[in-house]
């Protein structure tokens, strides 16, 4: 009984936190909106690569801060196996990592 109450409280708290944060994100400041617009203005391959990266790699881990270009192909090949990348996503991510 006590455990059930604890669980219910935890789930309720987590839901409340999520809703609060989502509401705040909807009311993002103008600077954030303009940042998004700038992002959209980027060339198509980069946008596709960004999307492919977020939908495959970034679902589990953050992007590395930096890395030398000579390992970009190895990273993509590693991710192809780990994340079962399609050929299109593989190409898009390679262009994104090594434009």
């Amino acid at each position: 009984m006590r455990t059930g109450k604890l669980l219910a409280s935890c789930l309720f708290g987590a839901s409340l936190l999520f809703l609060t944060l989502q509401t705040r994100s909807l009311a993002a400041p103008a600077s954030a909106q303009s940042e998004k617009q700038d992002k959209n203005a980027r060339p198509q391959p980069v946008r596709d690569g960004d999307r492919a990266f977020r939908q495959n790699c970034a679902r589990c881990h953050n992007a590395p801060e930096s890395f030398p270009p000579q390992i970009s192909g190895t990273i993509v090949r590693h991710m192809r196996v780990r994340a079962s990348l399609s050929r299109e996503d593989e190409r898009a991510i390679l262009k994104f990592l090594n434009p």
Partner: protein
Amino acid sequence: MSHLSHCPAFYAIRRIPVAVALIVTVALLGQYAGAQDTPLISGGIGFFSNTNGGNTTYLPVLSPVLAAPIGPRLLVESRATILETFFPKGGGQIGYTSAPFLGIDYLQGDFLVSPHLTVVAGEFLTPFGTYNERLTPIWIGNFEDGPLIFGLGTMNTAMGVGGMLRGSAVSTPKYSVDYAAYFSARSTNQQFNSQRSSGGQASIYFPETGLEFGASYGRRLQDTQQSFFGFHVWWEPIDSPFRLRSEYAHGEHSQGYWIETDYRLSHFGGPTSTIGRLEPVFRMQQTFRNSPDSTDGLPSADTQRADFGLDYHFAHEVRIDSSYSRQFSSTGNRNVWETGIVYRFLFPTWKGK
């Protein structure tokens, strides 16, 4: 040396030169790769502490990853875990003692047959659920401890020695379907320990909503044969740092689930602001024991556990993890406190062309 020679970890340590020689060989083979295909070394190095029921354990860990392409279609990759556990002597004695450990998590060759098929051979992570393949690296997982149901479907060793077929079956802008199917032989080798088993998984992902549904199946084919199945649901909304991950697994003697949510506060001033580097994490777990089984790795009695975590992402790939867990069980309730710091590294094996 005399008393250490009876310790399994001693044999593991003796294999370090073999592992190093293998890594160097593979890296040298990789020098004939293309301009963007230089072999890489990645991984994480961390220091963790765990206070469970009043006893504190310290764990310095190094987990290197090697990935070396050979030609246009082959990739050799491996991950190892090297750690030293410092724990109280116990038995009324004061002070700490330690035990070393070296384990190869996977060492596999990946042959890229077609855009939809990769053939994997060697020692690989068992594809059951999501935790084993996706969240076990120390620089990825939000919690130091794996979920309580981790043993179900992963055949205890969490690795297989044999072959696997995997890839992207279908990929469209609306959805994508992935699959994996494997067969593992029985191996009692210290570093390549696996059970005779087979299984696989399939999942469908909807990129517009960030939803993923998947199902896994595994069957142990040695000793007392046993089937396992499981389901997973991940929801990671687009343009939101909110993530929800969940898994359910069922064995013949037990079952359970975990649900994990995290939310990096990057909407508060961006991901590099002081607040934006914070990431609250919550995980709920329950296990249910249907009948006694000492081999499935789950608690011997029904257990509930709530994990509350807070991660902080520093610049330069450094992350601090901390968590408090409360576990409820008829065998006794307990608190678990964990803290850790992890640095993730990534660099080429040489300067390249």
